[in-house]
């Protein structure tokens, strides 16, 4: 799968971790991070730090809240909470992918779940649930789900 055009490169932390958007449609979105030396959390094993997976899941969940085709400036939001369960250490030298699905959007809040995996989504290394609050538009107006096409 090739990276598709996205705004991840405009987010300094996402770019620094190496996130690329692989898929973003009605079935949610998939973001990938390649294995990299600066992401290692345990120099004894080469396993990627949980924090990098936290960042990946947070960002992927946030993107899943966005409806494909709606301008980024039209929907501003903030993460309210994020709960992550770590099932297995990430295998070193392999890409890590995250797939997030926004299963409910209300006027104020969006609810998302996500899975981080390497070879297949059936064998997760971490799962998470998150909620996001809509905070308005870049112009200061409130957006909520009124931006739904």
């Amino acid at each position, binding site marked *: 799968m090739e990276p598709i055009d996205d705004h991840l490169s405009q987010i300094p932390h996402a770019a620094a971790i190496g996130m690329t958007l692989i898929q973003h449609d009605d079935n949610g979105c998939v973001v990938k991070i390649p294995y990299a030396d600066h992401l290692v959390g345990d120099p004894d094993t080469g396993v990627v730090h949980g924090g990098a997976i*936290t960042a990946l899941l947070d960002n992927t969940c946030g993107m899943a809240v966005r409806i494909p085709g709606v301008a980024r400036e039209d929907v501003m939001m903030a993460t309210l909470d994020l709960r992550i369960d770590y099932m297995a250490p990430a295998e070193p030298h392999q890409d890590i992918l995250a797939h997030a699905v926004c299963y409910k959007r209300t006027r104020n809040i969006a609810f998302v779940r996500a899975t981080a995996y390497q070879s297949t989504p059936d064998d997760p290394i971490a799962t998470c649930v998150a909620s996001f609050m809509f905070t308005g538009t870049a112009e200061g107006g409130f957006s909520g789900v009124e931006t739904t096409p």
Partner: protein
Amino acid sequence: MKLLLELRDQGRGKDMQAVVEQIPYMRFLGISVDRKGNEITTIMPFRQQLIGNVMLPALHGGAIGAFLEVTSVIQLLFDTACERLPKTIDVSIDYLRSGRPQTTYGRAIVTRHGRRVANVRSEIWQDERSKPIAVSHGHYLLTPF
């Protein structure tokens, strides 16, 4: 290399600054550790690559989550001599305020310490300790000596 074993053998088992300096991801985040007696404060100075929202600007939720996790793990290692780094089992993060582009500080408390699993609460703040930007609680799997 056995990071924690080496530090212990050098008599630096409580040197948490040495730990953060040897873990690539903690170096990438720019985290350092301040120790006053038995009190540990983690410090994450602002750097551009921590930003998640350029317009506000605000720190990335992932950088905040990672800093909370590092704060928890460093406190655990300080309290308990471990053979290997604690493994995160789960973590729950509440985002309370937007993280501004400035230095962030962290403190953690080991709320329950079992033989194999510890429960840790962390909070991080910027200008005022009484106004945390995020808090977390998590479970960690331990490998004590």
